């Protein structure tokens, strides 16, 4: 049984008392007696009112500004000098109030932004505030859950099956040094013998480029790359522990249909990456995507140890990934990209061994927009998908070749081929259409009126074809953002709500300075888009954005285009040749088959 209290609600403010009115209702619902005095009372008048009404508790609200801290400190002094301080508890609320400030001003409690009415009621009732269970614990969401990958478009399914047969047949007698390195890496990770590990490292280094070989042979690091010191690693661990101990993440989602939100990191420094991740987690991000360096994608082999470097993208090593994984909140989804480059099997192996939730594989984008040789990536990707299946890591199939100029229907054809390949190999693919202002629509005009219809068309089209999870990327709103952070944040948030309205499962968002940062992106700019997305989800709730009839018309056109491309791929003989010949994205479109790893595929030796 809780004692009923008499509470004076005092806006020590010329105007504002909204928060107090809300608390008043909450207190009265709990049976407490409240007295709300009007705004603009002097501190002395409030003190007199406290004495006259013989109250138990006073809740003061005040918007903090220049000199106001002194006013509030003086109010507490007046209360003490009046002899009421020992019998009356006094709390302060306001947009700039934090517990530290409340302590400094001499109040018994401080209620800042995001304070719930329940929290203020708990203070009045003298009990510890415990946030409601469902809001205090975030759950890790499996975005593939509930999808059966049933193809509604049987013609497309049949075409895909034939193409996948061709791919599996093509790779069946081929291998690469990347596949062999992944196998050795696995042995290193699973071996308990230091001497065996040393031997395996020697074998591994023989399969690497010179820059990696010299690391294993003479401990030499690539330029601009260095190991983190022990002090740095210790400081990182301390930082993570300290941040996690006080972490109380926001929620971005307002209704169940709101998608999970991923951010992407790759500052080059694992410490800085983790600082970005922790900040994004605090502001509600549900997942983080690891970006590797572009030189790493063109280099055969991985380094070892805690490594930092002065370039974009963070170096993939077992230790770096492990430290990042260790820093994450239990509910944070973590993806390690393996969609391009010369180390895709080993990347997925490391991600799986360390406990990543997701990976990213797409042969079409990786070889047409990501710079990797189509044949090499095809052979490697089949192995990478097998690891993804083994470690039960769903992988998204990104279609960023659209940004090179490849039309959506061609990019989608490539995405569907790799997705079907994934299904055949026992993995769970996630479709990743872009929400962007792509060169295709710039030229053809589908976005002259709005950014809604063509993006909606992509989702309608994919839903017409197959019942599969969809994660819009990457990041959403690409090429609609400018150097103005408010504009960028707004574009991100509107695309996020469009994605939500269309029922997609996940989205990746950029920071508001990502497109124009000219260097490292900043934490405040990350918070911009996270908060904008949260606000947009709150704004739309269960309501929907309604596209025009163009969306369904263009969805049909894209679907027809996909069918035509798949037929061409099949007619052409095999998928790898189709990539070289531009069927899934041509030089005229802006896609060029990558050169990294050209002619490096070997016949298997049995």
């Amino acid at each position, binding site marked *: 049984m809780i004692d009923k209290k008499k509470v004076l609600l005092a806006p020590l403010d010329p105007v504002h008392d909204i928060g107090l009115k809300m608390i008043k209702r909450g207190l009265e619902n709990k049976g407490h007696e409240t007295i709300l005095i009007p705004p603009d009372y002097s501190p002395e008048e409030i*003190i007199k009112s406290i004495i006259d009404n013989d109250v138990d508790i006073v809740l003061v609200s005040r918007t903090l500004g220049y000199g106001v801290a002194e006013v509030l400190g003086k109010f507490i002094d*007046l209360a003490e*000098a*009046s*002899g009421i301080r020992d019998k009356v508890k006094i709390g302060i609320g306001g947009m700039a109030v934090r517990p*530290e*400030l409340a*302590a400094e*001003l*001499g109040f018994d409690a401080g209620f800042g932004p995001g304070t719930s009415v329940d929290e203020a009621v708990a203070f009045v009732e003298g009990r510890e505030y415990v946030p409601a269970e469902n809001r205090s614990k975030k759950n890790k969401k499996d975005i593939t859950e509930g999808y059966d990958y049933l193809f509604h478009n049987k013609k497309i399914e049949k075409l895909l099956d034939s193409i996948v047969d061709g791919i599996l047949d093509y790779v069946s007698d081929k291998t690469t040094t990347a596949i062999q390195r992944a196998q050795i890496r696995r042995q290193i990770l699973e071996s308990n013998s230091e001497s065996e590990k040393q031997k395996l490292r020697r074998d591994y280094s023989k399969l690497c480029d010179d820059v990696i070989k010299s690391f294993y042979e003479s401990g030499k690091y690539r330029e601009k790359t260095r190991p983190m010191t022990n002090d740095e690693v210790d400081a990182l661990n301390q930082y993570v522990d300290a941040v996690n101990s006080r972490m109380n993440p926001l929620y971005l989602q307002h209704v169940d249909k709101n998608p999970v939100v991923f951010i992407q990191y790759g500052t080059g420094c694992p410490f800085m990456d983790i600082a970005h991740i922790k900040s994004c987690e605090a502001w509600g991000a549900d997942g983080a995507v690891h970006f590797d360096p572009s030189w790493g994608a063109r280099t055969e082999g991985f380094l070892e140890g805690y490594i930092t470097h002065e370039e974009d993208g963070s170096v993939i090593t077992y230790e770096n990934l492990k430290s990042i994984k260790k820093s994450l909140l239990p509910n944070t989804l973590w993806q390690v990209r393996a969609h391009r480059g010369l180390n895709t099997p080993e990347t997925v192996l490391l991600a799986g061994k360390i406990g990543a939730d997701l990976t990213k594989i797409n042969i079409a984008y990786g070889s047409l927009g990501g710079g990797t040789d189509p044949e090499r990536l095809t052979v490697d990707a089949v192995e990478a998908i097998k690891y993804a299946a083994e470690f039960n890591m769903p992988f998204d199939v990104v279609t960023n070749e659209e940004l090179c100029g490849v039309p959506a229907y061609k990019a989608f054809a490539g995405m569907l081929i790799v997705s079907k390949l994934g299904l055949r190999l026992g993995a769970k693919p996630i479709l990743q259409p872009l929400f962007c202002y792509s060169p295709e629509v710039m030229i053809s005009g589908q976005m002259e009126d709005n950014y809604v219809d063509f993006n909606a068309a992509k989702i309608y089209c994919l839903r017409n074809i197959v019942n599969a999870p969809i994660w819009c990327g990457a990041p959403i709103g690409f090429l609609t953002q400018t150097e103005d952070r408010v504009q960028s944040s707004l574009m991100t948030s509107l695309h996020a709500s469009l994605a939500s309205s269309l029922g997609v499962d996940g989205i990746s968002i950029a920071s508001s300075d990502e497109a124009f940062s000219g260097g490292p992106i900043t934490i405040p700019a990350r918070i911009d888009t996270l908060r904008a997305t949260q606000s947009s989800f709150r704004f739309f709730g269960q309501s929907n954005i309604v596209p025009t009839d163009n969306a369904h018309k263009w969805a049909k056109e894209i679907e027809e285009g996909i069918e035509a491309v798949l037929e061409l791929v099949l007619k052409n003989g095999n998928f790898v040749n189709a990539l070289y010949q531009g069927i899934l994205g041509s030089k005229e479109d802006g896609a060029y088959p990558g050169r990294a790893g050209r002619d490096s595929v070997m016949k298997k030796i049995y």
Partner: protein
Amino acid sequence: MGIAIGIAGTAKNTGKTTTTSAIFNELYKHKIQVALTSIGYDGEEIDNITGLPKPRLFVKKNTILATAKKCLEAGNADYDILETTDISTPLGKVCIVKVIKEGLAVVAGPNKGSQLNYIKSRMFNDLNCKVILVDGALNRLAPMIETDGIILATGASRNTDIDVLVEETKALYELLNLPTISKDDLQFLSDIKKIALVPKDSNAKTVFLKYGSLIDNEIVNEIADIIKEIDIKVIFIPALISEFALKTLNDSIGNSWANKDLIISDPIKLIIGGNPETMLKEVNRIKCNDGNIKALKNIPLLAITVNPFYPKYRFDKSSYEPGYINKENLLNKMRTSIEVPVIDIKQEGPSRLLESILSRI
């Protein structure tokens, strides 16, 4: 028994923490068992209000602190918790701790006088502390009543006009030096919690009002009405006196102050009720009308530290940046006007301050 010293400020950034740290270091040198608490929040890296960097608090092994539980996790000193008190703050219960590994500390202790009294008694009686430093917060003074003397930190952060600053500090000094009442009167008045009007006629009954504070016209009018009817010798106000109410009382009873005593609980009840210079003016009006003003208790002003720094607000950037006034001018004028040591702690160090403290142990 030791001494509890309050480091009070007239505003934020007047140098409270710098003064505290300097005294701390000097006490360490003399190997005197020292304890620290704060009625605010001290030791943070960045000011909670202005966002400017702040001086940090470095504590050595064996120092006793009274600080809120959450503050123990901040900084890098390590502690042995001697007691978790029932004193609640926005940062958790106040703990009495002993430093077992020196380092930076964040201190947010009890913020009410009564709570401070408890902490003081534990530190003196059970933990053998010789000096307790009570760091202030912003312009707050009320809990300082529980100390044995205060060091006043003032400076440009309070006012960038040196003449105004000196006048105000002088007024504070004079108010803190009000005469105290006799022991007999003290016995009679110390337990009274409401405003009391004591008649000259010793057979007449003392009149008690509903309130302990003199804070509005209603109370002033009630006093004035009683004075018209009864010949009063003492007006005792145990709690707060506001500037407006005291001025109205003076306007109302004017010449009737003759041969009457206004007795207040302590000068702090007067100082926090308004602007010190205006308060002093009203006090002098009482004296000019042949009245007296006395306090049950005084708190000696041990010294004044001055700080020429102030956080300058940049309207174009909506942020603060460091600003300074003329230090020499400030020191000279302050020293000429006030008869307690006036010290620039950064330049002179704390040895003169320590003399004032040690002489009282």
